[in-house]
């Protein structure tokens, strides 16, 4: 398959089941809601070392938030329910509770309920008060700037993590420009995050390493500087490869995000140095979710 001169590999991205939740952060203005959301989703690029993968889903209009203030919705993904709950609580406690004027709400009502502010309330040292409104429990925790309002719980759902595609370009700046264009379009899609810095990964990994202590190492088959000395997957004209990783609440959400992302890359086309789109997988043996690039772009 070739779109606008860009070859779409007959391969697939392989993804894994994860647990996910959504939280809504509001504040006096969008600036402070975003600061809190950025702190909460910081250092959350990969479950390998961060404990979770998190990102900002989108900015919310005041009409969309529970308290009518500007807000930001964040998605957090983890490999298991316990890990997710721990990450959520820790991040909410250190990054949202502490953030001026913030309030924190559930972004998913269904599913198993996990603590959001349920335990953060103890920061109130007995001065905290609860309000049950329309069946939802809220906690009001007195803090130095007024009150921190938080919903007690949020819903946890089954999700999918690790959807991806690789952008192979003739130069580093062309690869990055294509990825930036893809991220702009993908950020418009609901229920997905691209957890890596700016949504783009330059250090895609393979499973395993020559060093026994490491479970993953550089994906040498896609490293352009190793073309001559390893079993490369790159043709001579490829000078740079970048990856976009996608976590989504459902497989369909990732399908849709990959479609608009790849399309945005292909819109730049061969004329802008984009040669191929590929994807990372483990031979289909590890992850139950397969995203076939040519099917998605068909």
């Amino acid at each position, binding site marked *: 398959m070739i779109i606008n001169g860009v070859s779409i590999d007959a391969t697939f991205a392989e993804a894994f089941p994860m647990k996910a939740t959504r939280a809504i952060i509001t504040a006096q203005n969008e600036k402070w809601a975003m600061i809190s959301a950025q702190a909460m989703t910081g250092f959350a690029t990969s479950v390998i070392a961060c404990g979770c993968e998190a990102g900002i889903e989108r900015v919310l209009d005041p009409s969309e938030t*529970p*308290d*009518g*203030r500007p807000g930001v919705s964040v998605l957090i993904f983890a490999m298991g329910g316990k890990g997710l709950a721990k990450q959520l609580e820790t991040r909410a406690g250190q990054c949202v509770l502490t953030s001026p004027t913030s*309030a924190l709400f559930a972004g998913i009502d269904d599913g198993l309920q996990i603590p959001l502010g349920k335990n953060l309330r103890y920061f109130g040292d*007995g*001065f905290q*008060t*609860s*309000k*049950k*409104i*329309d069946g939802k429990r*809220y906690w*009001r925790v007195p803090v130095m700037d*007024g*009150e921190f*309002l938080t919903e007690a719980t949020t819903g946890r759902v089954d999700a999918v993590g690790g959807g991806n595609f690789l952008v192979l370009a003739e130069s580093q700046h062309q690869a990055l420009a294509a990825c930036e264009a893809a991220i702009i379009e993908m950020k418009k899609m609901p229920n997905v995050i691209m957890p890596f810095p700016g949504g783009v990964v330059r250090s895609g990994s393979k499973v395993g390493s020559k060093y026994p202590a490491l479970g993953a190492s550089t994906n040498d088959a896609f490293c352009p500087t190793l073309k001559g000395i390893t079993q490369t997957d790159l043709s001579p004209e490829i000078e740079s490869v970048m990856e976009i990783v996608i976590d989504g609440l459902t497989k369909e959400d990732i399908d849709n995000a990959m479609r608009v992302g790849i399309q945005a890359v292909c819109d730049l086309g061969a004329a802008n140095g984009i040669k191929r789109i590929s994807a990372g997988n483990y031979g289909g043996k590890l992850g139950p979710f397969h995203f076939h690039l040519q099917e998605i772009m068909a």
Partner: protein
Amino acid sequence: MSALTFTVKQETAQRVDMSPLSCQLLKGKSLPEIAAIELQNGKRKLRADELFEISGSNTQQIIIKNSFAKLDFIAKDLQDGSVAVEGEAGAYLAMGMKSGSVTVHGNAGLYAACEMKNGLLTINGNAGDFLGAALPGNKQGMKGGTIIVKGNAGQRAGDHMRRGTMLIEGNAGDYCGSRMIAGTIAVMGSTGRFLGYAMQRGTLLLWQQPTLSATFNDCGSHTLAFLPILFKSFAKLDSKFADSTEAFDRVQRFGGDMAEKGRAEVLVKL
């Protein structure tokens, strides 16, 4: 199916216990069976059809027409279904109500919604004393649900209230929120003496400046984030409280009752 309608033939001199005519007890019963239900009337019993003209068949939608103030225990322990009272309701209206809705087009007597657990009670007239309270000797009053009073409420509204929302469009009598454990009482009109007496937790939300006892301390003026959410939850109600122009988030906060736990609050609109 048309609503099961009880039309009072003639008011009785003695009080009537209406608890056998609650929706959940009538489910599956035929009209003759309902007509034969005995109601306690003073020290004697009378058949339902002696007191009422009975028509309709939907036992989950009851209308009581020409109701008068001696019909006690209307909608007791109501579970689903709706009850509409056209006229006055006696004491213990919607006592222990679990779910469903009750609407009274006139006034209600003592202990309306006492120990109510959930559901919606609307009183278009005035409510008597001990609205949403605990029965004498019991320690917990209303535990959930919503009460709307479009007129005034008597004394001791929310006495021992545990949870839920009480919305009073008119005035509240003395001891409003007394011994309240938790929950929310909102009063648009005036409040009487001894507001929040021995109140432990919970919120009294007031539109008018109250006379507070010395055991409520001024905590200053604040913009509280939970108030817009609370007012938004009122939007679906048939009440002045649903009017967005009545909503506010800026309040003077008084903490008390310091003679008790001191974790309750009186919030007065600024």
